[in-house]
């Protein structure tokens, strides 16, 4: 499969990643190689397989949506970059 530099740049934008020109060139080649291998899946006869059928005996699991209080608030917030009062302070996300 032919992969262009523009394809890689487009996918990177969707994935929220940035690459240098050199990295994009390298990724383009690697992608072509890996996706070429992935095309082996095209050779398989999967015409009559329905992936949407749920296996016998399998069922979805539900639970009630119950509020619980985390026992230790200090612990809970220890990975937040910074706090203001009882709020987690994050960078501005709205323009």
């Amino acid at each position, binding site marked *: 499969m032919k992969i262009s530099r523009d394809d890689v740049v487009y*996918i990177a934008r969707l994935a929220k990643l940035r690459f240098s020109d050199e990295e994009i060139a390298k990724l383009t080649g690697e992608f072509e190689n890996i996706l070429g291998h992935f095309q082996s899946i095209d050779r398989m006869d999967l015409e009559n397989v329905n992936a949407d059928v749920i296996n016998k005996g399998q069922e979805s*699991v539900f639970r009630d949506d119950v509020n619980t209080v985390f026992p230790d608030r200090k612990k809970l917030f*220890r990975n937040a970059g910074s706090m203001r009062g009882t709020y987690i302070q994050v*960078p501005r996300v709205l323009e």
Partner: protein
Amino acid sequence: MSSGFMSIGEIVRGVTGGKYSAAEITEMYIEKIKAADNTIGAFLAVCDESAVDQAKAIDEKIRSGKRPGKLAGVPVAVKDNICTDGIKTTCASRMLENFIPPYNATVVEKLLDEDAVIIGKTNMDEFAMGSSTENSAFRKTKNPRDITRVPGGSSGGSAAAVAAGMVPAALGSDTGGSIRQPAAFCGIVGLKPTYGLVSRYGLIAFASSLDQIGPLSRTVEDSALMLEVIQGMDEKDSTSYRGEYQKDYAESLGRDIKGLKIGVIKEYFTEGLDSEIASSVNESIRHFESLGAEVDEVSLPAAGDGLSAYYIISSAEASSNLARYDGIRYGYRAKDYADIDELMEKSRSEAFGAEVKRRIMLGTFALSSGYYDAYYNRAQKYRKLLKSQLAGVFEKYDLLLGPTSPVLPFRIGERSDDPLKMYLADIYTIIVNLAGLPAISVPCGRSREGLPVGLQLIGPHYSERTILQAAYALEQELKLEL
């Protein structure tokens, strides 16, 4: 106290019988880590103080006459993608370099409930993506059997720690072979349980439909004991198995395997399999026959084609799971940014390593408009086909057998520049995850150079007892000195 290998049973009997204290055991293993880990590099964190405190509490519990747990005083190492309350859990990534979970994974709670001692966190491929542990952002782990070679991956730190005798047992995670392949490379036992048997709550997600936690140990019996402790229904994991759990894995070892029907997967013995691995596995097949098992060759046509489907599905799930690392709420945050998009892009690009970015890109591609049907949908159909072929095979056979890895442990750096070549190292292990089956890797021989060879036994869902019995029978028959 023996300075050589001690089994879990030996440690528990010694600690509960008063022969030695849990604190002495823990201190002994900390010394072993200090002596060996500068060379091996298996650990990302050693919890020397908290481990000794924990061990002292176990000693106190025993002294006060309370019933000790099933793993009383057994030091266990935990892969660094499994959350440990108050202990950094980094996934070997710059993204989570400073992440300290506010809670324990269910498996860690279960270990603590049975009085195991959490001795440290082990190195891995970043976010469990890799087959050599070379993708860690922090250090390279070496194979204790030959330090010029990789320990396998992604649970390479756990496997190396066990193989070097720095811990009696460890936890790993297996998304496409990440317990079994490093176990094979390091000459130890690694068990990937049935999907759902062991809770994934607190396991940092890579590919949620494939991920599973399991034990690594020196002996089959120790893996059986570990599984008894870590398995169980968990309300916090919606994929947790809700049926009956077998509780006697260790007790049922040693039973006769006469009449056990084993199918040897034909598609695994083709081009690409190292000849020394093939000959060790064939030798083990003869041992199984002499033990009374009925061994036949079986064809599983889909088995040879799983790699593409595996990498499409796992990368797609990874691209979705890792979208949460945005630099906003926790994890690495880039210093300079003009707006929210730049903040996210720079944080992710600066903190993720090359392989993680490659997988996110592959997954994003496979899920993107225009390619979804050609890749993701076809991969899901393949998965369905594979499951139905396996179900057919398991109507006739109790277990399937094959090599764990097509190659012997390779040299550090040998495959790191060629991602596709690295992906091919997983070719025999991935079908197990795609179908949610249990499988074990057990040492079955050595190459001329002395490198370990692993044999894989695969069973139908929830057949861990049979798998462990067969692996145990082979282990006892071979009596390998690794």
